[in-house]
């Protein structure tokens, strides 16, 4: 409590003071666990973004790899090497550097697939809610059918179908886009449902009627008038979905239908490490696993806080 009182004595620019007095910021500062979670998430995100500059080795550069360095334990264990903080994997890649690069891929795939799901879901939700009738029925029935199945199953099906259609591609970047497509298409329903029900309420309000009366085109009304009013809850879904998308990417990669071992995400690293668990080389799987768990847990905690903070009923 006292920290907040002290803070108000310091002379800050009026704009910053106003920002700090904001309800949302206040409730953020009050929730210690959210602050810690945000810090953990920030450290991982920074490590991922800055990977090319701060990683001691480049795991994608085959020239620097030496098979003689393979399966080395972490520094503090017997036989550890000072060059490799968290040990090396079966190909002699530095586990710490690979985690940095791997989180980069995991986060990128997670963000892109959430963006795809949100864009698709919001568009369909606005369309269904505003037009009603047959379009509404079609979109929402499709959503119902998809909601019968867990996301992991939908993602696996899409992944398998794309594989059958295009065969095994040699382009490694193709794997990323297949993943983004599979995960994105399995998450759109929640956005569509939320946006549709809110659009239903908004479209009969006076400001929309007024806009229609003066002859503004429907798509302009949707994007500029209705969308800003329904975007709030969508942000909450985005954070919660981000955690789910990261888990789903890791799961698919772990199952061997995601990113390849030459371009490992956290899930692929755990898959590789899983093969060495029994021979005592635990660090290959456990360190990426802990990173993944920390990332998902902290994103979840921030999402929980955001949901409560934005919920008017709990204020």
């Amino acid at each position, binding site marked *: 409590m006292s920290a907040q009182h002290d803070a108000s004595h310091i002379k800050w620019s009026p704009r910053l003071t106003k920002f700090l007095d904001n309800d949302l910021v206040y409730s953020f500062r009050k929730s210690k666990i959210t602050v810690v979670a945000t810090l953990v998430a920030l450290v991982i995100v920074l490590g991922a973004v800055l990977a090319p500059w701060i990683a001691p080795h480049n795991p994608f550069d085959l020239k620097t790899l030496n098979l003689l360095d393979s399966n080395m334990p972490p520094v503090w264990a017997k036989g550890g090497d000072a060059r490799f903080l968290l040990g090396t994997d079966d190909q002699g890649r530095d586990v710490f550097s690979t985690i940095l690069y791997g989180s980069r891929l995991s986060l990128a795939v997670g963000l892109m697939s959430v963006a795809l799901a949100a864009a698709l879901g919001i568009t369909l939700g606005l369309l269904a809610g505003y037009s009603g009738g047959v379009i509404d029925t079609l979109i929402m*029935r499709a959503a*119902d*059918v998809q909601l*019968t*199945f*867990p996301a*992991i*199953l939908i993602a*696996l*099906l899409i*992944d*398998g*179908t794309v*594989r*059958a*259609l295009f*065969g095994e591609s040699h382009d490694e970047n193709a794997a990323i886009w297949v993943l983004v497509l599979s995960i994105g298409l399995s998450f759109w329903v929640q956005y569509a449902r939320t946006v549709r029900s809110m659009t239903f309420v908004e479209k009969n309000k006076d400001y929309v009627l007024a806009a229609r009366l003066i002859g503004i085109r429907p798509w302009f009304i949707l994007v500029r008038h209705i969308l800003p009013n329904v975007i709030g809850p969508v942000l909450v879904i985005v954070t919660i979905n981000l*955690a789910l998308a990261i*888990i789903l990417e*890791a*799961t698919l990669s*772990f*199952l*061997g*239908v995601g990113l390849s071992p030459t371009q490992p995400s956290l899930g692929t690293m*755990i898959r590789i490490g*899983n093969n060495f*668990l*029994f021979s*005592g080389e*635990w660090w290959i*799987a*456990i360190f990426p*696993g802990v990173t*993944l*768990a920390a990332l*998902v*847990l902290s994103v*979840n*905690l921030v999402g929980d806080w955001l949901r409560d903070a934005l919920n008017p009923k709990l204020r």
Partner: protein
Amino acid sequence: MLAFVLRRAVQAVLVMVVVALIAFTLFRFVGDPVNQMVGIETSAQERARLRQELGLNDPVVVQFARFIWAAAHFDFGVSYQFKQPVNDLIKQRFPATIELSLVSALFSLLLGIPMGVYTALHRDSWLSGFILTVSLVGISLPTFLTGILLIFLFSVTLGWLPSFGRGDVVAIGFWTTGLLTKSGLRAIILPAVTLGLFQMALIMRLVRSEMIEVLRTDYIKFARARGLPNRIVNFGHALKNTLVPVMTIAGLQLGSIIAFAIITETVFQWPGMGLLFLRAVQNADIPIMSAYLLLVAGIFVIINLVVDLLYVVVDPRIRIEARSA
């Protein structure tokens, strides 16, 4: 009441038709059945003849009807990778998945409900705080990671439990069970806990929040005012009403347990349908994929229907609404 049941049944049939349409599209258009059946040296005429024999030149509607008819008789064609009827493959593996799913569902209910009730009744005790924190971690850990950590702890480090396979199984008619042998029972512990942990955390949190809500209501206050002992108020009055929504979620979760079994079966090399489906996805084995899709959709739809009907039986308010509608 009858109208309600009928409406739900029609919805269920509709979902099945859509899923069948998707499965058929996959089966017919994504993989070319002829190319998968013959070698490279087969001539074009030979292929055309085969195409005609298989009825692939018939109108699509006729083919779809034939597909449904075959599926209704559990005939899903021949697997591309194993060159065996898909039906036989699934029959061998079906019991393993169902057994694993039921054991882990039981595990999650038997632990989740008491823990939820405890944390709702003793909200400020340190044990509740501990249980809640652990459950948050349980929800955040991906299933495969839980499995690997459990294997690392109980199989590699401590050497207490086996880490892969089903152990010895006993055949009872067409059903094979691992629940009657010692090695089978030991083998199911780790996979079942892995699969059930997430559901357990979910059920625990649900029971807790529902129970807290119910404990605030007037009829509970009235029961306390009447001087009824705590035990009767908590378990006789409150828990009974808490369990109605829990039942729905638990029923629906059984469906996702079967789907998540794909991951658990891979981690533990459990010889079930999930592992079969995953191999099919990796190798683009369309017949198995479409058969699995139909089968799982069927199970999901039946579970949803049963849950809806149970709701009518348990909750008198729905019965009255349904009667007036």
